[in-house]
């Protein structure tokens, strides 16, 4: 079961890679694969047992898979130090503003929808 789901995932990834080379050079292969799988799920209307098992298994270990690429920071220590304050300021401030904006906007829109619902 697990292997069948894994085969599907690899198949969609390879399909994505082929499309990336053929037409869509601005989108990475795995992203195209994800969009294709999503479209496939929408058409099918449900997630099959093998696929959900394989996806769940892989996603559970996603943080582990991200460790080796993250270690690559050691190569860029100098650039980080050079731009440290610009980076810290940009990350912190933009997070703060957009987080509050997102919450506020969603709350307003929900309130408005609720009021509309009462009127009609």
């Amino acid at each position, binding site marked *: 079961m697990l292997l069948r789901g894994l085969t599907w995932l690899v198949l969609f990834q390879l399909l994505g890679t082929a499309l990336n080379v053929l037409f869509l050079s601005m989108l990475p292969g795995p992203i195209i694969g994800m969009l294709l799988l999503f479209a496939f799920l929408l058409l099918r209307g449900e997630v099959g047992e093998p696929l959900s098992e394989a996806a769940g298994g892989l996603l559970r270990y996603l943080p582990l*898979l991200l460790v080796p690429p993250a270690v690559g920071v*050691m190569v860029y220590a100098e650039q980080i130090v050079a731009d440290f304050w610009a980076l810290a300021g940009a990350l912190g401030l933009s997070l703060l503003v957009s987080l509050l904006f997102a919450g506020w906007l969603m709350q307003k829109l929900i309130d408005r929808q609720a009021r509309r619902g009462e009127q009609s």
Partner: protein
Amino acid sequence: MSPPWQAAMQAVIHHPLFGVGITLAVYQLALAAYERTRWVFLQPVLVSMTVLIGVLLAAGLSYQEYRDSTFLLSVLLGPTTVALAVPLFLNLKRIRQLFWPTLITLLLAGLLATVLGVALAWAFGAERMMLMTLAPKSVTSPIAMLVAEQIGGVAALAAVFVLITGVLGAICGPELLRGIGVRHPAAQGMALGITAHAVGTARALQEGEESGAFAALAMSLMGVLTAVLLPLAVALIA
């Protein structure tokens, strides 16, 4: 150390499985530490990264060699990114009622989070490579890394920016949101999912079921939108 010991040590350090071995070991230790303490700053990826850099420096291994010896792990990142379509599909089924509020918030707030980050870093004088790395900071790591690489940034740095953003958002997000009068669980979840991706989603789940579901949805939609639109936008502007 006598020569045979040294030879054995060298053989172990340069074995093609050494990278996988230490990564697995360190990650499990970091995970255990996080589960024991439940302290947000102890994100397993962040802790493992720091410890592994220390180990590599101590053993005198280059990042290139470590990278080659962890091929077994990194090759799985592609199929795992594809697998993100499954939670996206499952979450999408939940929002029928709040479809328009969700969509509008996602588009406007997602745009703001991305543009503001890049604009601020540019105003503070960061280089172009850093700007491109910063752009996908609000998205879940595998997507952010792919996108950063695609638009001329650095995948490794993107992963770190993503983590820092997520941890910050998860720590102070809920308090701040309540402070400005955002009470609806869906609104709190959306805000956390859009800006603080997976870490924010975990936090939203602690707040409640509905909040968690919206955070997960916001995270997956934000990821897909960024993956599709950001490379296009960069190609158009540059």
